[in-house]
C-alpha cells in the first residue's frame, strides 16, 4: 500500500508560504472546534462530579469527596472552584499527609489571584491546622484585606475572629491582643457581635476589654440577660465588685434561673460585706470585718488540716510544715486583734489581714477552691495583691 502524496504545492517560496499559512489557519480552526467540543463535554462531566463531591463533603464523606473533586479536576484541570473545593476536602479530611497537597492546590490558586480572600482564608486554615502561627496570620490578614465576592464586612470580621481564636488556642494572647482591638473598632452594631467579642476578650484574659464589650451590648440592648450576666462576671474577674454586684443583680432579676450569676452574686455580696479595705467602711466596721476574717481563717485552716489528715496539735512533719507555719502565724497574730482599736497601730490591720490572706491562699492551694466567706476572702486577697503590684 503506497501512501505518497500528489505534489500539490508549486515550488515558489511566496506561494508555498501562502499555502502553508492557509493550511495552518485551517488546521487551527479545525482543532479549535475539536478542543471546544472536547472542553464542553469535559466541563459538563466535571460539573456533575463536582456536585457529587460537594454532596459527599457536606455529608463529611471526605474521602469520597476527594475522589470526586479529583475526577472533576481531570475534566477541567484549571477550574479554580474545583481546586479550592478539593483543597478544602483534603484539609478537612483530618489526614496530616494531605495538608501538603491541599496547600499546593491553594498556592496555585493564590499565585493566580493573590487578592482572592477565599483562597487566602483556605490557606490560613491549612497553616492553622499545621499550627504555623506566622504563615496562618499572614494568610488571615490577606483574607481580611482581600477581595470578597459577597458580604465583605461580615466575612472580614469572621476571618479576624477565626484568627483570634486560632492565636488564643495556640497560646499567643499577646498576638491576639492587637487583633482584638482591631475587631472591637470594626464590629457591627449588634449585641450578638459584641457578646462574641466579649468572649474573645475573656479568653485573652482581657477582662476590662470584655466588660467594655458587654457594656456596649447592654447599650444596644439594656435588657439582654446574657450581656448582664457576662458584664457581672467580667467585672467580678477584673475586681470591680460594685459593678459586678450591680450587673449580677440585674442579671438575676432578668433571669431568675441563672444559677451561676446567683452564686457569683452571693460571693460578690460577701466580698462587699467583708472587705475591710473598702473606702467607705468606718474604723469600727473595719475592725469587725478583720476580726471576722481572722476567725474564719482559723476555721478554714482547721478544716483543711482535717481534710488532709494533719493534726495541728501534734509535732510538725515536713510534709505538713506549711500548715504548721500558718498555724504559728495565726497564733502569733491573735493577740494583735486586741490592739486594733489603738489609733497608733496603723499597720496592724494590714499585718493581720496578711495572715488571713496567707492562710486562704495556702489552703486554697492545698485543699482546693473554698466556698462562701473563704472564697470572698480569697478574692479580696487577690484584689489586694493585684493592687499592690
Amino acid at each position, binding site marked *: *500500500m503506497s*501512501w505518497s*502524496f500528489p*505534489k*500539490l*504545492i508549486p*515550488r*515558489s*517560496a*511566496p506561494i*508555498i*508560504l501562502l499555502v*502553508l499559512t492557509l*493550511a*495552518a489557519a485551517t*488546521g*487551527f480552526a479545525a*482543532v*479549535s472546534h*475539536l*478542543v471546544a467540543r*472536547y472542553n464542553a463535554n469535559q466541563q459538563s*462531566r466535571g460539573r456533575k*462530579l463536582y456536585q457529587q463531591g460537594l454532596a459527599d463533603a457536606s455529608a463529611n464523606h471526605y474521602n469520597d469527596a476527594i*475522589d470526586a473533586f*479529583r*475526577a472533576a479536576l*481531570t*475534566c477541567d*484541570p*484549571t477550574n479554580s472552584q474545583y481546586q479550592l473545593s478539593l483543597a478544602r476536602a483534603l484539609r478537612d479530611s483530618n489526614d496530616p*499527609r*494531605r495538608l*501538603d*497537597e491541599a*496547600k*499546593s*492546590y491553594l*498556592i*496555585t490558586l493564590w499565585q493566580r489571584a493573590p487578592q482572592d480572600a477565599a483562597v487566602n482564608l483556605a490557606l490560613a486554615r491549612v497553616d492553622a491546622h499545621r499550627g504555623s502561627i506566622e504563615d496562618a496570620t499572614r494568610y488571615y490578614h490577606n483574607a481580611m484585606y482581600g477581595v470578597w465576592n459577597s458580604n465583605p464586612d461580615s466575612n472580614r470580621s469572621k476571618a479576624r475572629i477565626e484568627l483570634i481564636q486560632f492565636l488564643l488556642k495556640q497560646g499567643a494572647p499577646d498576638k491576639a491582643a492587637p487583633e482584638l482591638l482591631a475587631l472591637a473598632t470594626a464590629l457591627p452594631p449588634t449585641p450578638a457581635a459584641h457578646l462574641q467579642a466579649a468572649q474573645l476578650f475573656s479568653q485573652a484574659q482581657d477582662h476590662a476589654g470584655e466588660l467594655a464589650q458587654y457594656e456596649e451590648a447592654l447599650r444596644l440592648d439594656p435588657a439582654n440577660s446574657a450581656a448582664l450576666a457576662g458584664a457581672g462576671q467580667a467585672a467580678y474577674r477584673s475586681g470591680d465588685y460594685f459593678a459586678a454586684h450591680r450587673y449580677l443583680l440585674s442579671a438575676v432579676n432578668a433571669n431568675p434561673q441563672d444559677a451561676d450569676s446567683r452564686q457569683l452574686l452571693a460571693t460578690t455580696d460577701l466580698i462587699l460585706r467583708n472587705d475591710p479595705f473598702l473606702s467607705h467602711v468606718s474604723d469600727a466596721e473595719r475592725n469587725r470585718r478583720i476580726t471576722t476574717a481572722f476567725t474564719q481563717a482559723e476555721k478554714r485552716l482547721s478544716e483543711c488540716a482535717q481534710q488532709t489528715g494533719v493534726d495541728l496539735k501534734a509535732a510538725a512533719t515536713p510534709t505538713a510544715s506549711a500548715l504548721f507555719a500558718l498555724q504559728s502565724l495565726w497564733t502569733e497574730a491573735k493577740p494583735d486583734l486586741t490592739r486594733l482599736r489603738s489609733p497608733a497601730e496603723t499597720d496592724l490591720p494590714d499585718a493581720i489581714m496578711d495572715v488571713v490572706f496567707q492562710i486562704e491562699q495556702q489552703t486554697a492551694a492545698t485543699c482546693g477552691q473554698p466556698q462562701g466567706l473563704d472564697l470572698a476572702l480569697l478574692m479580696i486577697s487577690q484584689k489586694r495583691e493585684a493592687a499592690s503590684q
Partner: protein
Amino acid sequence: MSEPASSGAVRFQAPRRLFSTLEGVFNEELFFLILSVFIGIFSGLAVVCFRLAIDWMHLALLGPLPQTHGWRMFAVPSLAGLVVAALVLNVFPAIRGSGVNQTKAALYIYNGFIPFRTAIGKFICAAIAIGSGQSLGPEDPSLQIGAGIASALGRQLEISREKLRLMAPVGAAAGLAAAFNAPISAVLFVIEEVIGRWSAGILGSVVLSAVSSVVIVRWFLGSEPLFRIPVTTFKRPTELLAYAVLGIVGGVASVVFAKSIGYLRPRLKALPRWTQYFQPALAGLLIGLIAFLGAPQIMGAGYDSMDQAMHGQYAWKVLAILAVLKILATTVSFVSGAPGGMFAPTLFVGAMLGGAVGDIERIFFPQLTGSTGTYVLVGMDVLFAGFLRVPMTSVFMVLEVSGNYEIIVPVIVANTFSYLISRSLQTVPIFDMLTRQDGLILPSLEEDREEAILRVEDAMLPAPATILNAQDYVDANARRVQDSTDPNFLVRMHPSGWNIISRDQLQRLFREGKGEHTLGSVLPPQPLPSLYPDLPLDSALRYVNDYSLVPVVNRANSRKLEGVISRDSVFKRYESPRTPVGV
C-alpha cells in the same frame, strides 16, 4: 478602448513586482527557518489532537473516573492489545515501540524519510494503547508524529536532500516540546539523542519549531505543567549525601529497567509471527491484573499518580511497590510491540523511587529538610539521566518543569551518580541498544564524548629555524637561506599574515634582478592560510595538499609561529593516533 487595458496592466504589475521581490528574498536557509515555524505549528496541532485522542480513548474504554474499577481493568487493555497488534502487524509495521530510534534512523540512514503512514499509525495505535491502560507514555510517539509531519512536508516541498535530512529532528523537537510543554528540554533531548551531536547549523530551526509547537499547545490546552510542583527545599549541603544515595538507587534501577527491556525484546521478537498478535494483549492482561489487584496507578502514563506522590499521598512502601510494578508493566508493554513511549514511565518510576528513598532516609535522619515532593522531583530526573542517558536534558527538564532553581544542585549530584552507575553497568544506552537490536548502528553523543579528538597541535612540527621577512630585500633573504637545506621557507608578511616561497623561486627572483625589491612586493598577494593549535586535525586536511607547509600560529598573536603542519606530519599522526608526532 486602450485606456482600460492600460490601467488593468498597471493594476497587475504591482503584485507581480512584489511577488518577484519576495522570490528574491527567500534563500534556502531563510526558507528552512520559516518552514521550521510551520513544522512547529503543524506538530503542535497534531499533538493537541493526539492528547485529546488519548483522553477520549481512556474515557470511552476505561470510564470517566481516574481509577477504573471492575472487569474493565484487565478486559480493556487485553482487547485493545489485540486491536493494536493487528494494526501494527498488518497496516503500520514501522510503528512498534518508542519512535525515538526510528526518527534517528530516518536522519542518518533514510535521508530524513519517514513515511506519513507511520505518523498516522503512531497516532492511532499509540492513542489506543495508552488510552486503554498500557504502561506507556505519549511523549515519544509525539516526537515521531512531529518528525513524520516534518518529513512529509519536506518531501511535498521537494527541498534539498541535505535539508530534508534535517526535517526529522526539527519535527521531532516540535513534537516532543508540545508533548512535554517544555521547549528547552525538547531541544536538548533532540540534540543529545536524535541528532547525536552538537550542530550549530540546525539549532536555530530546532528551537523555532519547538517554541512554535509549545505556543500552539499552550494556546489550546493551557500552560499548566504536567503536575503541580510542590514546595521544594534544599537547605544544608550535607543533605547532598541523601541525594547521592537516591542517585545510586536510581542508577541501579535504571540498569535493571534497561537490561529487562534489552533481554526480553529480542526474544519476544524472535517468537513466531502469530504470537505477536497476542503479545500486546498478554501485556495488557498482566497490567490489568496488577491494577485489579490494587495498583491501578501503573496504568497509562501515570501523571496523576506522580502528582499525588509529589504531594506525599503515598507511604514509602506503596511508593517502592509502585516503582517495581511500573518497571515490570512498562517492560512487558514495551517489549510486546505496543506503540508508546518510555518518557512518562521513566518519570513515574523515578518519582516513586525518589519518594520512597526520601521517606526512608527521613525515618533514619529526621533532620533532613527535603520534602517528599523534592525527592520525587529529583527522582524523576535521576531515572531520566540513568535510564535514557540524557544528562543535560534531565537537568534542564527539572528547571523547566518546576521553575525552581533551588534544587539544581541536588539534581546534578543525584544525576551524576545515576548516570555514572548506569554507564558502568550498562555500556550501551537504551535507545542505542534498541537500534542495534534492529540491526542499525547510529552515531551517539555518548560515544562521541568518549572518542579522543585529534587536534592540529598533535601533528604539529617545530617551527623552522629560518623564517623570512617580507620587509627585507630579496637578495638579503636569498643570502639567509644559503646555508639552509630546507626546500621551502615561510615568510612573515607585514603587517600580518604569512606566505611561503621555495628556494628555487627565491633564486629565480634574484637572477631576474629583483634583488633590490622587498620580498613582500614580489610575492603573490594571496596569503597563506594559517591554523591554530587547538583546531581539529581534520581542518588541516583541506590545506596540506595545496601547501607544502601550513603555519600554526598563536591565537593571541598571529605573527607568533607555534609550529608548522605538513601533509606528511598529518598523515603520520592519523596512522598512529596514540603517539604524538614530535615523540
